[in-house]
């Protein structure tokens, strides 16, 4: 544990530090901007392929295997197909909002990657408030989703958008509280310093925090079992029902880009980011991100969807109290035993996490969903 200093002394100004990078500030900026966009597009294509193939295997079918070797070019073929489609704007739509929504949803997801370290110091901007920036920026995507839902002039879209707002508003709080646990242990808000302080991956030091963060992240980016926003069996396609062609492709991209971004954040916060033996750091980072993404695919194929009131109930009655307890325990550990080995807390925290989760799952009642009408 890197000390009990809870006060972060560095000023909360933007601190861009491309110090040892050749060519200075602008080359650094250009290189990482291009790298991030390319990286993200490639990762999204990979993610779509992985998801479809893995789901195929898990569902005892083959999955796409016709386009290119092992169906590797399937996402490319899909992209070409979807770009050539006609762009239909419904007559009842609010044209400007309908047009802007995919852009508003897509940009913040791209911006998350600005503070994610691919290896030591290799990131666009090493903000000293990195994780705060991630939280702030990632919730802007919701505005795009709501614009899509409202601007489409479709009731299914509106229902989906309302669900998304409800989910994000509820899960933002436990998400941040789970992050604060990590921040307390590492003593920094900077993404790069969080990684450098992880001699033991924080998934072991903060097992409960990891669990809660994963749940909240899944709810925030609408991954199953919290995919109520686009619940295909209920709302046909939710907020993007009325989108076609390129704009639909943007939303499709956002869905996977968000999943990738959240996987990257989880990797950075809990799985010691780029650190790892033998392999180059950036490769470790990608491997870990893909593993986290795979877990998301896994839950998607395994679990049924929860209902909207159960989603809310889970946030306020289960995830939020546990996040507060986790924060409390972490704070006590850091303040009173700053010199005790982290391995000791690994054991203590895993035991506590198990006890708390079992206790809360016994107490947690999803609630009675019926309303008298």
């Amino acid at each position, binding site marked *: 544990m890197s000390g009990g200093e809870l006060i972060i002394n560095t000023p909360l100004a933007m601190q861009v530090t491309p110090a040892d990078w050749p060519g200075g500030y602008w080359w650094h900026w250009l290189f990482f901007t291009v790298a991030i966009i390319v990286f993200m597009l490639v990762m999204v294509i990979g993610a779509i392929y992985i998801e479809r193939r893995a*789901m195929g295997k898990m569902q005892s079918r083959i999955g796409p295997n016709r386009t290119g070797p092992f169906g590797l070019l399937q996402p490319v073929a899909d992209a070409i197909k979807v770009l050539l489609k006609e762009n239909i704007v419904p007559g009842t739509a609010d044209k400007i909002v309908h047009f802007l929504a995919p852009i508003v949803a897509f940009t913040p997801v791209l911006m998350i990657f600005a503070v994610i370290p691919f290896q030591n110091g290799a990131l666009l901007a090493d903000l000293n408030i990195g994780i705060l920036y991630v939280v702030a920026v990632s919730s802007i995507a919701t505005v795009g989703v709501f614009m899509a839902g409202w601007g489409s002039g479709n009731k299914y879209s509106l229902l989906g958008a309302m669900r998304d707002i409800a989910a994000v508003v509820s899960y933002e709080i436990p998400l941040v509280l789970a992050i604060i646990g990590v921040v307390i242990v590492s003593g920094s808000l900077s993404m790069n310093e969080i990684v450098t302080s992880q001699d033991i991956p924080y998934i072991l030091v903060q097992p409960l925090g990891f669990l809660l963060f994963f749940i909240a992240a899944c709810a925030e980016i609408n991954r199953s079992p919290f995919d109520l926003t686009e619940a295909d069996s209920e709302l046909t396609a939710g907020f993007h029902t009325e989108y076609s062609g390129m704009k639909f492709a943007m939303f499709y991209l956002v869905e996977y880009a968000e999943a990738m971004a959240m996987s990257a954040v989880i990797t950075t916060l809990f799985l010691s980011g780029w650190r790892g033996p033998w392999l180059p750091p950036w490769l470790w980072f990608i491997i870990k991100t893909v593993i986290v993404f795979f877990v998301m695919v896994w839950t998607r194929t395994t679990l049924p969807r929860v209902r909207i009131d159960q989603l809310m109930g889970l946030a306020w009655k289960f995830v939020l109290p546990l996040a507060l307890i986790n924060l409390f325990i972490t704070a006590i550990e850091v303040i009173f035993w700053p010199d005790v080995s982290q391995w000791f807390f690994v054991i203590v925290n895993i035991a506590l996490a198990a006890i708390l989760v079992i206790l809360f799952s016994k107490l947690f009642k999803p609630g009675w969903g019926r309303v008298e009408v």
Partner: protein
Amino acid sequence: MTTTQELTLKTEPFVLNMGPLHPSTHGVYRMRVTLDGEVVLDIEPIFGYLHRGIEKLMEERTYTGCIPLTDRLDYASAMSNNFSYCLAVEKLGGIKVPERAEYIRVITAELQRIANHCLAIGAMLNDAGALGTPFFYLWRQREKIYDLFEMLCGQRVLYNYMRIGGVSQDLPDEFLPAVKKFIPQLRHFIDEYEFFLKQNEILIARAKGVGILSKELATNYGISGPVARASGIRWDLRKNDPYSVYDRFEFDIPTRENGDCYDRYRVRMEEMKQSLRIVEQSVKQVPGGPFRTEVNQVIRPPAGEAYAHIEGPKGELGYYIVSDNSIAPYRSHIRSTSLINLGALRQMVKGWKVADLILIFGSIDITMGEVDR
């Protein structure tokens, strides 16, 4: 001065049109749903999009020529429809069916029940948002049953297998060994499937206590089959009014008490096991002899009327036929289970959420071909 009264947000219910083209309406069912936010205030069922006038068409065909039409009613359980229709005509004409044909009919009808329940449970879980996986697992088992039927009559979905006075062709030599091999496989599969889903937290949260159909309501609406048995009505025509050779087999009628979606799922699972028991016993007992009574191609039953019903996979499936001693039925009526079971839907969904509406609708297990006829 604005008063508090004026500032209070006024909400009003809105109408959402679900269907006829919606992923979860099992065909072309349409509901005009009145929603207050997420809460279902009322639904107005609209159907008839698949109406083909089968009852009228039957008046234009010979008695044998009607059999293919019955296939097209409930295309998820065509054998049961054949069976019920043939029973009605045999009752009308006083035609005796040989032992062997009775056993073949029982085997096929029970296998059909399993196939139908595979589809019903899979579709219901799909509606619950379990993206494909439980569906595909059951689908694989259903395919095996369809392979068996293909062996029997060359068709996979619409069999046209039963004939008045027996079945169209004898069992092929490899059929009974294949069934014997299939029984333990399916039994193992059911246990495995139960292990995955019986205690699934999300499924229980979603389905337990949801869409309760009380015993009184079920009786008043004339609901039969697994839906009625899940509500605690111990009514199974195979026991209560044994037809064919069902009185020779040992099996139980699984019932549940609560009448919610979870119970309907459980009852179907248990019924699959019981059907396997019947198949197992009947495979051992199949006698030799002819597989069909010699009857004329063109039957002229004596003038009169007859009603025959069987316990179809979805409930009581009956055919009412009036004969005027001509080659075609004077009038025919089908007691189609799906339509009658749908009756209580409106009572069941009031006050639940949109997601529950879909799940409750899925748990009733309907086929639109049978609803619209």
